[in-house]
């Protein structure tokens, strides 16, 4: 309770101003941000519509909230609309209950598991048609999408007040530790008393809060780094296209791509071993890659094994080309 330092207040204000929302709240751990935000609003008896490819932190948040969860196919708006219509018919049977059950849609801006964006304009239309609130998780898209890096709302040109809650972690673009939620005061203030990861836990070390503020300063002062990043992403996306045996999964402007095997050998273990050999080959020649890790028994919809390729704005074009050619070599020698 004496752990709110003026650096935290400054960071909250800067984030709220950067994202052009009314208020922001800081958590000391990225995983805990969305896992505490969802149970603060959605309780037993409420209904949440989630994308299948949602990340593990969202799944844990939903599990902690004890609400009814309805999964819809990844990025499939027709499937979501079908589920919403079913819910509407259910409501008409029991209007009194329907008046108190809250409804939420939880989506990610850029999905960590597949690397593509969610169709936000259609989601907004569905929101007003069926009266559901939207929670957006922007861990990967904050600082990447949009002209000034404000995320997917700027990318699509949507009014930020249309989204009820935006949650992101500072561990990806801002290279600090922790996470934040931003939105209107009406929604964010509730978390100060009922967000478990906020009330019952120590706050962020001031060092890391100051690092995040500096990172925000850099982002605001050089808005052209986003263009550079996007150009590099497109370059590597194109360079990795022709590799035999591996297919690229992810949007062309996403900085984190997945490389999956074109034909799976049938068993997940063999796929993982094969990908490991590719990763080791690259590691021995000077490129550090990693396989995307999942807890196989705990995930609701397990994504296929893949290598995650992540780009940073600091890499030069020669380095990117070298990495791509090395991957081609590795795939050719090991997968054919």
């Amino acid at each position: 309770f004496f752990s709110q330092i003026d650096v935290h207040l400054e960071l909250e204000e800067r984030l709220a101003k950067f994202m052009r929302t009314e208020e922001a709240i800081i958590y000391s751990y990225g995983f805990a941000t969305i896992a505490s935000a969802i149970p603060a609003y959605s309780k037993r008896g409420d209904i949440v519509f989630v994308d299948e490819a949602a990340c593990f932190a969202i799944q844990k948040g939903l599990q902690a909230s004890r609400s009814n969860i309805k999964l819809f196919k990844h990025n499939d708006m027709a499937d979501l609309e079908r589920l919403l219509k079913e819910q509407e018919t259910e409501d008409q049977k029991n209007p009194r209950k329907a008046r108190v059950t809250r409804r939420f849609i939880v989506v990610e801006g850029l999905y960590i598991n597949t690397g593509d964006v969610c169709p936000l304009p259609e989601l907004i239309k569905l929101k007003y048609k069926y009266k559901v609130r939207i929670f957006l998780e922007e861990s990967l898209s904050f600082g990447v999408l949009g002209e000034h890096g404000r995320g997917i709302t700027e990318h699509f040109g949507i009014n930020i007040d249309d989204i009820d809650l935006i949650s992101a972690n500072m561990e990806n673009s801002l290279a600090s530790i922790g996470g934040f939620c931003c939105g209107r005061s009406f929604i964010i203030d509730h978390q100060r008393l009922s967000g478990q990861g906020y009330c019952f836990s120590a706050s962020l070390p001031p060092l890391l809060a100051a690092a995040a503020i500096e990172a925000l300063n850099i982002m605001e002062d050089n808005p052209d780094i986003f263009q550079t990043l996007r150009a590099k992403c497109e370059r590597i996306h194109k360079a990795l296209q022709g590799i035999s045996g591996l297919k690229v999964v992810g949007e062309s402007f996403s900085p984190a791509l997945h490389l999956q095997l074109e034909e799976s050998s049938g068993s997940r273990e063999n796929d993982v071993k094969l990908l490991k050999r590719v990763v080791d080959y690259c590691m021995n020649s000077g490129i550090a890659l990693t396989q995307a890790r999942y807890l196989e028994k705990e995930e609701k919809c397990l994504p296929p094994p893949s290598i995650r390729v992540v780009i940073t704005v600091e890499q030069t074009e020669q380095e990117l080309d070298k990495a791509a050619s090395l991957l081609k070599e590795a795939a050719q020698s090991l997968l054919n």
Partner: protein
Amino acid sequence: VHNGGLYKRPFNEAFEETPMLVAVLTYVGYGVLTLFGYLRDFMRQWKIEKCQNATEREEQKDFVPLYQDFENFYNRNLYMRIRDSWNRPICSVPGAKVDMMERVSHDYNWTFTYTGRVLKDIINMGSYNYLGFAQNTGTCQEAAAKVLSQYGAGVCSTRQEMGNLDKHEELEKLVARFLGVESAMAYGMGFATNSMNIPALVGKGCLILSDELNHASLVLGARLSGATIRIFKHNNMQSLEKLLKDAIVHGQPRTRRPWKKILILVEGIYSMEGSIVRLPEVIALKKKYKSYLYLDEAHSIGALGPSGRGVVEYFGLSPEDVDVMMGTFTKSFGAAGGYIGGKKELIDYLRTYSHSAVYATSLSPPVVEQIITSMKCIMGEDGTTVG
């Protein structure tokens, strides 16, 4: 005291009973405030009084309301009146004396404005700075600054992918040596350590016996694991023994099969009551009924025991009796994060299956360095006698 023979020293606990007058007045006070709350809600609804808290957007007025009226009743009417006692921001290191920002409210605590003045040198009796390692001068701070310039502030990856630094391995070996266990593993947040590792250790078909006053992180971890939870009265060994007997005799509720695992969740020092767990008796019960013990030493590590090794040393017991020793670095070490210590097979299992190792980022390097330096200081390895 039942089983008094297990204690090497007299174990005295004194809790003051609340006087009858105070209890009655408290309840009467709550009643009066509730009545006033209803009156003011009524006036706000009929627009006699201005509504000052934030409201829903115009376009979303016909959505299902986000907060039910009664849920927010306490918040609006009771908490708002006394809100200024909490969450006061500080602007210096939380040491023995602290500087605070002055904060005033002109509309009865609905909004706060900072006057910009700083109140200096206020005696601090509220921060968890037990051993004084939160200072910003001295060896800890210099070591952390050096590591910051070498490794940077963020790690940007999980333990199993790209976030496993040599600093983390060094820290884990040190923690294992400090506690006297075979092996240890460190995580980025104390709350998350509990809520992400208890589900990895127990699942459906297991039984969790947890103390009445356990911390929210233990409760959340127990709920997320899917095991059956039974609660015993705070620090009451008879209640715990009765539950253990029932569990062994009756087994699982419907199928009557024996439980796969029985895990007892206790804390070293309970943060809400300030009481210390009766560890010798718990260990005796654990051995008699063959269950596992999970000890959360968030507050007691570094603070209890002649050389700061925690509640196990305070009672003179062996750390091998406790199956899972968990703790945080926030309180005594002046850093952030949590750890779990235990046998090597347990820690190896957690390295593969813990939710935090796979999906959550690892500790930040300067924080790790702060923990290493402060732990070495406590153990006396840095050559001085400060520890």
